[in-house]
């Protein structure tokens, strides 16, 4: 019979009420864990993708930082030439112009992501290690190399036509092996037909490969200095940018889950308050027997903490399970694990649950420890 034991006894003496309160905390924690797990999942897959993407530096138009997949190509051939010249001076290995085109709607299920490559450049230059499972790796002037997931999803086979516009049609010449990276979802085509479809000679981005020993940050700053209007971002820059965006979306998602958390907290507060009210005489007896006010205070706070931390643990477990289920689904659909319950997220969730319990318990506990002994004893 320790303090913990006393608290547990009291909770078990009213099993239905305790269970319902616990359920409230579990639901609140689960929803918070899930909401926040999406941000963690995005962070994780972003880091993985970026580490798989070959080029150390991407040159994009100013204001297009981040992953400018869908932007209209704005880098002119003139800018490209200047970038190549600058690159030569700085001793970079290679500068590859590229262009992205999305066909289809917002639904990743039905959209096609095309990446344009200059003549003679195979996709393994940008995504090292990828191999064809059928056909070839280097597309001809009217050919396309299709990522494994796109091929599977749209049931593309060698020789199938891919229509980019009424006038431009390409043929599948190669299908890639699944790599687990971004390339699985892309279709690699020559730059020319893409530019033709968009009626431009511009590029979306210039991908800079470095020689061993070169520092990405330094080269990027030097390139920027020589290329007004363009931004040279390193993988680190992209991560930092994405991190900022993710932070904001974390806050938004935490804000949404705050509603559930507040409801959970109020449930705990209500339960503890009722239990304090019902036990006024009991507390009076304890005080009469020699319990100090701090003892009563701890007894009540611990009750709230116990409900909240146990509910928090269960919620975390449930949230992790649901997160796994979501990942199973999204991995099959878009090839990304959307949700991740990381260690720091788990820690955060437990701390929030504990904080919840503490704040829900403090007021009832203070109240309980302040009732005058005679008054408490007088109440039956």
């Amino acid at each position, binding site marked *: 019979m320790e303090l913990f034991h006393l608290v547990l006894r009291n909770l078990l*003496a009213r099993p239905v009420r305790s269970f319902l309160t616990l359920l409230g905390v579990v639901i609140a924690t689960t929803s918070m864990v899930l909401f926040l797990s999406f941000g963690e999942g995005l962070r994780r897959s972003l880091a993985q993708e970026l580490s798989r993407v070959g080029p150390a530096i991407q040159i994009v138009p100013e204001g297009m930082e981040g992953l400018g997949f869908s932007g209209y190509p704005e880098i002119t051939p003139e800018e490209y030439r200047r970038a190549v010249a600058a690159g030569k001076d700085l001793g970079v290995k290679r500068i590859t112009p590229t262009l992205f085109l999305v066909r289809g709607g917002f639904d990743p299920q039905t959209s096609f992501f095309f990446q344009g490559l200059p003549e003679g450049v195979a996709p393994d230059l940008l995504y090292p290690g990828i191999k064809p499972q059928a056909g070839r790796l280097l597309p001809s002037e009217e050919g396309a190399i299709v990522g494994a997931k796109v091929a599977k999803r749209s049931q593309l086979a060698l020789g199938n036509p891919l229509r980019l516009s009424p006038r431009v049609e390409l043929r599948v010449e190669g299908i890639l092996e699944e790599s687990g990276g971004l390339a699985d979802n892309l279709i690699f085509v020559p730059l020319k037909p893409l530019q033709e479809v968009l009626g431009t000679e511009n590029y979306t981005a210039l991908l800079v490969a470095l020689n061993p020993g070169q520092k990405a940050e330094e080269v990027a700053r030097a390139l920027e200095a020589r290329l007004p209007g363009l931004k040279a971002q390193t993988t680190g820059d992209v991560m930092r940018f994405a991190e900022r965006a993710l932070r904001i979306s974390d806050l938004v998602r935490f804000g949404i889950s705050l509603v559930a958390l507040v409801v959970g907290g109020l449930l705990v507060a209500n339960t503890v308050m009722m239990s304090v009210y019902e036990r006024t005489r009991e507390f009076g007896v304890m005080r009469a027997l020699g319990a100090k006010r701090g003892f009563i205070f701890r007894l009540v706070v611990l009750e709230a903490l116990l409900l909240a931390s146990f509910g928090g643990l269960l919620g975390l477990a449930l949230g992790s399970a649901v997160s796994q289920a979501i990942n199973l689904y999204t991995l099959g659909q878009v090839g990304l694990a959307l949700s991740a319950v990381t260690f720091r997220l788990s820690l955060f969730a437990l701390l929030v649950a504990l904080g919840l319990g503490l704040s829900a318990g403090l007021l009832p506990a203070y109240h309980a420890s302040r009732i005058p002994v*005679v008054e408490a004893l007088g109440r039956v």
Partner: protein
Amino acid sequence: MMGAVRAENLGKRYRQGEKEVVALEGFTFAFPQGSTAVVGPSGSGKTTLLNLLAGFDLPTEGGVYLGEVALHRLSEDERAEVRLRHMGFVFQQWNLIPTLTAWENVAFPLFLAGLPPRARKERALDLLEKVGVLERAHHLPSRLSGGEQQRVALARALALDPPILFADEPTGNLDAESREQVASLLFHAGQERILVLVTHDLELAARAERILYLKGGRLVRQEVPGPSR
């Protein structure tokens, strides 16, 4: 030890809106070793007196002394500590902790005093045996009869072997047989302690070594009953 429990010019007034209720006034008495019953009609100030003697409440006049210690000058928590170490209590019914079994109720003061778990249980079962409810040790209070509950309460009051024992209508709601059991156990425990028994049951009071009569908050008479025990 602490010697006697002394009340000096003890008084308690309650303010109820405009008017003042004098619950106790000018009460002076030194409770010696042995049993002292405090009797009087309902509303005569018995419970008020006990509340002040036990330090549950503070007097508006006078003071309570345990030997050299002025109880009414101590803080709330200091008074709790004094109660834990030096006083035992048996109230009217409903004074057991409902979520704890009989033996755990008895062990509660031992827990507060910081005894190790094993010692607590041993002592609790020992005490339950002494008051004759050992076979109910693992029952919750709600499963015990009124008489059994009061015997458990008495065992709990004796847990830390306190020199002072307070009882407020301990036999209030009991049938004749239970009343007899609880009363004899109580007076037995009171022999080598300072027992203050508050009751309006004159038959019970007659078994004490001294009787104090309260009326309208004042001590009106003391007597030592004849040898009719």
